[in-house]
């Protein structure tokens, strides 16, 4: 491994260990720690003898045993998930919580998601579009044969909205917005004629008041004498 990787790894492990201890309170018990310290002291003192190969060997065996004794391996789903949760990630990793995701991985993650979404939408995209020429012919035929409902559907397909309003709908709308409206306008004004006409009443322009009002409104009050 390169020094760069070793450095990364050391840093990551050190931080992980600290986090793990802080979050889990998972430090060695005082009793066990004291027992290990005592054992280590005894090995090093070696009954007053000098530090030789035998003592070194003893120390090495002790280190291995202590490591095995203190290593806790998660074996259940709950325990493993807890460790991952505590560290917000794997224990052995070259990245830390909060590090930015490398560009290539971000692109790949996005690409994978997009592929799934594009393929999910594909059935809609693959649907064969209607031929506009055929639609126009069909619309003409529907109109010619008096199939207004079909014609309206075809108009929506072709233009995205209805062009010719349904006569019944138109009547209903007129009734709704104008027929029941309480419109107050001066009798004989331009607006009076318009309101009367739209409200389905008798054609107001047939009356003298309307005719005068219309002329006033349309000509800004100036009467023009029509040439005979």
């Amino acid at each position, binding site marked *: 491994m390169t020094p760069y990787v070793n450095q990364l790894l050391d840093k990551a492990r050190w931080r992980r260990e600290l986090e793990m201890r802080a979050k889990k309170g998972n430090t060695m018990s005082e009793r066990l720690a004291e027992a290990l310290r005592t054992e280590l002291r005894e090995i090093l003192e070696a009954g007053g003898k000098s530090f030789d190969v035998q003592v070194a060997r003893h120390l090495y065996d002790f280190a291995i045993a202590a490591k095995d004794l203190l290593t806790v391996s998660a074996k259940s789903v709950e325990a493993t998930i807890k460790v991952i949760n505590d560290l917000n*990630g*794997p224990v052995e990793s070259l990245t830390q919580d909060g590090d930015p995701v*490398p560009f*290539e991985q971000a692109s790949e993650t996005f690409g*994978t998601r997009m592929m799934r979404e594009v393929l999910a939408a594909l059935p809609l995209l693959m649907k064969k579009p209607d031929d506009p020429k055929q639609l126009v012919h069909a619309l003409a035929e529907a109109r010619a044969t008096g199939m207004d409902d079909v014609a309206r559907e075809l108009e929506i397909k072709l233009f995205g909205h209805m062009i010719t309003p349904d006569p019944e709908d138109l009547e209903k709308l007129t009734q709704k917005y104008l027929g029941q409206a309480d419109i107050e306008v001066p009798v004989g004004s331009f607006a009076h004629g318009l309101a009367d006409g739209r409200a389905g009443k008798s054609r107001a322009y047939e009356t003298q008041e309307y005719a005068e009002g219309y002329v006033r409104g349309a000509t800004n009050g100036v009467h023009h004498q029509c040439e005979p």
Partner: protein
Amino acid sequence: VKWFFPAWNGDFRLVEGAEGETQLLIMQPTPVELKMLDAFLKVARKKKWTTEKIADDEGITTRTIRLAASITDAGPALVKIVKPKDRTLTAVAFKDGKFEVAETGGLETLVAKAKKADATAAVSVARPTPCCPRCEVGAIAPASEVLQAFLSPEEHETWAKHRAIMVTGGTSGHQYLLAHRHSRTAAQLGKICYDADDRFVLHFHDSSVPPEEEILAAKLILEHREPWLRNEATVLQLDEKGGWHDLGFMRYKNPFGDASDGRGDAALTAAFGNVAPIAVQIYKAMQGNA
């Protein structure tokens, strides 16, 4: 007996019917899958199992096709067409809860055994790809029928509770945690598989099948063909600059290539990820102009 073939939108499945008949159920196939199914139906028509066809522009979503063949005849023929030959593992579950596996080359022997014994379900899974899109938290559906057919009661329980299971590597004996790709655990790990003994992540994924089928494939392969998923291409760690490093964890030889296995797929997906936003912008601009 049902034989599952994990696909993009669920599983195609062969269901054993009466009098040696089999039904092929197709679940929302993608265009590529439609082509593969068409190739299978060509074989089936040749063998006079069916007269059905799939049209080029067929907009089918889900459909059943009757085959005048037993599941033990139709199954191997379908595996050879819809799954890669060299990296597919077929598992058969028996009534006593045990299951046996075979690669496509040895499928006939397994099928013969399944014919004699009381088989309950079968599944053919492809090896996931080494490398590397990150897992993200998302919607999790109820456990699929195929996953349930191959989980022990204990695994079932932990799956229901945590959407994760623990499996033992068939060769190394290592304990692996496999988590649903949309679970919080997988999002924290970045991947679906974590070695609980060595405490690192194994880099592989299979986005071409639904999440539960991905877990099933990983479980079966780790238990029965561990080197397929624990090798120099998957036991690598990514640093924050995007570099890959071998930290010296125990691994096997990759039977399908070297450490670069899967990088081609990764590059292609990343390229798609880079181009897709631009394509969307162009499309939006065109819509705006129209």
